[in-house]
């Protein structure tokens, strides 16, 4: 509790004492926003840590071997992540629901194990030392975050954003409404990849040393939790979720040991009692629309419209 009190009574001292935490909050927020983009378009993807790794390692490798300026390194990291996103997205986005989630998890792990652990250039699993790390570079993170959140929020009102909302809500209807669902989904996925790559680059820059454990599956799950708890209606939701949950161990210092327990409990409670997250509209009591005729065509044969009809993640 001291934590919160100090925040308001001695802000600058608080900031000096908790710089690392603020940095972490920023990075986690960025990651949460990256997953938000895909959730907004109706896809549950857990590949963000894989893209983050691509961004982070690219940034550091370029710094070590090419000595290029930082913004270029970070940009390259993000763009490379985006390019990989295109390659992965094309085959994978045909999948829906759980299958898509699992495929993206698989991708993330392949990146971590396969590439990072095995290549000499990436340090063969021992991690890399970042020669130009700057642990004070926190403000850029938050500035980038601010611009992104504002931009994404405006984006939701554009043709693109509304197409995403339509796809999330009812993909079949969206396609019938002349929306090229494959293209828009790929767009959301790639944008998420770029943002995650960006987060990776900024995060790597803040650390003297990066290693593969930073990018494990658990982190992907954690990021999902941030986004979900915050609420996926607007991009500010995931930021709120990330900030709160990253700060949680500090707020409840005494319960620090049980932080994960608290995280888990909060998650379970929110999912049951407030599934729309902290920032979100309570879904109205929907009238259950009863189809006029549930089985018009003969029950034996059916039309494969989509490969897998496991229900898509709801908003």
């Amino acid at each position, binding site marked *: 509790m001291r934590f919160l009190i100090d925040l308001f009574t001695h802000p600058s001292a608080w900031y000096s004492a908790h710089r690392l935490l603020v940095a972490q909050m920023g990075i986690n927020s960025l990651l949460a926003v990256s997953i938000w983009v895909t959730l907004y378009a109706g896809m549950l993807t857990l590949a963000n840590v894989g893209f983050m790794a691509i961004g982070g390692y690219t940034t550091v490798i370029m710094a070590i071997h090419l000595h290029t300026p930082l913004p270029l390194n970070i940009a390259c990291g993000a763009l490379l992540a985006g390019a990989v996103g295109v390659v992965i997205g094309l085959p994978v986005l045909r999948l829906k629901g759980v299958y898509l989630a699992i*495929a993206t998890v698989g991708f993330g792990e392949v990146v971590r194990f396969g590439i990072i652990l095995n290549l000499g250039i990436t340090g063969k699993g021992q991690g890399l030392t970042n020669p130009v790390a700057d642990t004070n570079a926190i403000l850029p993170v938050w500035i980038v975050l601010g611009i992104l959140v504002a931009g994404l929020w405006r984006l939701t009102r554009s043709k693109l954003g509304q197409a995403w909302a339509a796809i999330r809500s009812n993909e079949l209807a969206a396609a019938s409404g002349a929306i090229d669902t494959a293209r828009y989904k790929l767009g959301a996925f790639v944008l998420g990849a770029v943002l995650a790559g960006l987060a990776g680059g900024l995060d790597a820059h803040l650390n003297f040393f990066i290693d593969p454990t930073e990018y494990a599956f658990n982190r992907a799950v954690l990021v999902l939790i941030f986004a979900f708890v915050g609420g996926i209606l607007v991009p500010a939701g995931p930021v709120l979720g990330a900030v709160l949950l990253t700060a949680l161990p500090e707020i409840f210092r005494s319960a620090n040991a049980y932080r994960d327990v608290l995280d888990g409990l909060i998650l379970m409670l929110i999912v049951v009692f407030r599934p729309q997250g902290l920032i979100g509209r309570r879904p109205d009591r929907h009238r259950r629309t009863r189809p006029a005729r549930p089985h018009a065509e003969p029950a034996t044969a059916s039309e494969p419209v989509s490969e897998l009809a496991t229900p898509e993640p709801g908003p």
Partner: protein
Amino acid sequence: MRYDAQQILNGVFLGSIYALFAVGYTLVFGVLDVLNLAHSAVFMLGAVLAYSLVALHGTPFWIAAPIAIVGGGVMGVVIEFVCLRPLRRRDAPPITALISTIGLALVLVALVEQGRPGRFISWLWRDGANSVSLPKGTVPDRAFHLAGLIVPETKVAILVLSLILMVVLGAVIGRTNAGRAMRAVAENPTAARILGINVDRVILTTLIASSALAALSGVLYGVAISDISPYIGRDQVELRGLAVIVLGGMGSVTGSIVGGYLLALIEVITLLTLGTNVRAAIAFAALFVMLVIRPRGLFGTTARERV
């Protein structure tokens, strides 16, 4: 050559454990269309509970193991009533069930992780984040020597037990009324209701059975591999289990069994040909490839969407 054959043999034993774990995973997915990510935590609890009973409380193994399995069943009840039923009642979208089980898994791992002497959880676990193994002599240490290979008795027992269990499970699902009811609910809950089947009860039974299997595979893992820690669920089987059910086909029991052995085999072959580093990634590479070329897996069925 001997080394290779030995590794393959180990792979077969490990495959039994993967298969048992995956069968539970896939049962829940088949009946409920939900991926129960607390399954790996129950796996861990099975191993931890068995260890605790044997090492901390001096229970003989052959009593501790069944208790651990029953404990798993109890966890199944918890999962149903805490994570799943409230969401079903509220007609929540399926992703919420996924997230709820993630939350529960987080809680369970974290609780065990905090086990230290003097904490309230020390009756279950005292070693924090460390890895321990079952004390020597918990299970007989004998081994056969077959064609120059060392075949530990316990591992043979694991293999035999797993195969028997799978046959029994297959018989129950295929031939009993309860099994038919389960298949009915898996295919079409509305039809099941029309027939007077209590769908909630079938779901509960499925969760209990599935979690008992998870705990059992955890116990066997603890016996086969000297490594019990709060993280074995998350690190060893969670993602491998996913890979297995994807390979075999989500919802297919046969698929999980075949997939379990298949994945173990793939891992061994990768280990022998490409070395340990690649081995870890191979499960996910296989998973990824299968999802792209044949999402329903080897034995799964396609679901169709009606316009």
